[in-house]
């Protein structure tokens, strides 16, 4: 049984080897960009619009709402990064339903890459918003003695991000593969449904945690310097906030 699609080399051109992870990632990218291009080339500003445009507008609006609710800031700068995280992971996870295709998120290399992107995005957004020194100063809070622990926290949560997504998706794929050999009928369908739910939830969790990390990089400064600013969504959903807080608190103890 193939544990990771990284080892499944599909195309080899000289020294360049294209494994299944990269190829499926390109396929996901192609599908997403193609759908986006097809839908957005004829956008309507009237009350009447196509169903696909309506779907994309709902998707984008909800992502903006979630980002605004979590960050208490205008969602504009964060939407491309966080939204792409969610859309890519969701689409990749849904590939789990197609027999014979291993989603790229079942590869630790992919989840690690995404986690590293988040790891890098946190200081980039923080420095862009608060400035270099102000961003670095938060590692000394509440006391300089906490610097090592803050650094460990940064690394551990990045690793946790990667491992959580990888573990959930890979485990689902492996479990379905094992069950296909043991109980080939009916039961794998239930596991596929479970995998579907898990894939959606994991995509949401990954994106939200990324947003929480990015927002926390400037939240410390905001508490002392700036009131929360949300241009697009000034009213915060308290229920969503609580659920996000819970997710944040449970990040150190991911399920699965």
């Amino acid at each position: 049984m193939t544990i990771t699609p990284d080892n499944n080399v599909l195309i080899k051109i000289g020294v360049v080897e294209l494994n299944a992870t990269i190829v499926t990632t390109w396929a996901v990218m192609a599908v997403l960009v193609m759908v986006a291009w097809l839908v957005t080339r004829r956008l309507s500003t009237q009350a009447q619009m196509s169903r696909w445009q309506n779907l994309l507008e709902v998707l984008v609006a909800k992502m903006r709402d979630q980002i605004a609710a979590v960050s208490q800031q205008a969602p504009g700068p964060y939407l491309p990064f966080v939204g792409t995280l969610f859309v890519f992971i969701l689409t990749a996870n849904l590939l789990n339903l197609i027999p014979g295709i291993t989603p790229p998120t079942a590869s630790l290399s992919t989840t690690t890459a995404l986690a590293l992107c988040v790891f890098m995005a946190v200081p980039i957004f923080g420095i862009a918003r608060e400035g270099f020194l102000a961003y670095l100063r938060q590692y000394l809070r509440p006391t300089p003695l906490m610097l090592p622990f803050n650094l460990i926290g940064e690394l551990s949560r990045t690793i946790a991000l990667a491992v959580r997504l990888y573990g959930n998706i890979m485990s689902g794929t492996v479990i379905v593969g094992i069950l296909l050999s043991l109980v080939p009928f009916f039961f794998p369908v239930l596991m596929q449904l479970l995998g579907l739910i898990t894939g959606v939830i994991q995509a949401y969790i990954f994106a939200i945690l990324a947003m929480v990390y990015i927002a926390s990089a400037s939240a410390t400064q905001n508490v002392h310097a700036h009131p929360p600013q949300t241009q697009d969504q000034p009213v915060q959903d308290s229920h969503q906030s609580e659920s996000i807080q819970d997710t944040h608190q449970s990040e150190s103890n991911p399920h699965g």
Partner: protein
Amino acid sequence: MSIDWVTVIAQAANFLILVYLLKRFLYAPVIAAMDRREQRIKDRLESAQQREQAADEQAQSHENALAQIESERQAHERAAREQAEQTRQRLIDEAREQVSARRAQWREALQQDKQSLQQALRREALDSVIAVSDRLLADLADANLQDAVVQRFAHSLKSDTHTDTEANSQLDELLATDASLQVISSFSLNEQQQTCLSTTLENRLGHAPNLAFKVDASLGLGLALEANGQRVSWSARGFFESLDKRIDTVINEASQP
């Protein structure tokens, strides 16, 4: 559970490329469309509010115009009522004046009729009184009364006893004629009475008169001396006629305004 770092780098690059592509083809167009729609809705709402405001102002203007029209209508109605009241009052006054004039005219006519009737009644009463008196005098005329009438007539023929100068001059003018004198009476005079009259005339004329005696019952109680178409008389009828003339004169004077 191994990590292929080449794949990691490739996936990171793929992800960043996907971020750019989705930002280019998904987020930016969709957000722009949503913003345009929101702006469009906002513009339409503002336009609707402006129209509503304009409609409210227009409605207010119409209400003001209606109120002004209503005010003018009330003023016109009030003026028309006042004019109608004035016309009615004027017509009533004219009618009252006409009625008053006609009433005065009617009263005047009634008064005239009343006076005419009174005059006619008075005249009729006098005529009746005169006729009755004449009749009574004629019926009661006996010898003594005839003697008294002769004596009264003879007395009136005397020039020194006449108080009425007009009657006296009329008698002189009558006696101056040389024509024969005629004594007219309603009864036949006896000889003594004729003598008395002849003597009286002779005393006045200074010679014996050419005297004749005639009986005329229409004369009534009294005597008349006639000569050459002129007559001097003393009779009850003559008094009554004189009285009648005086009454006519008084009535005519009273009836004139």
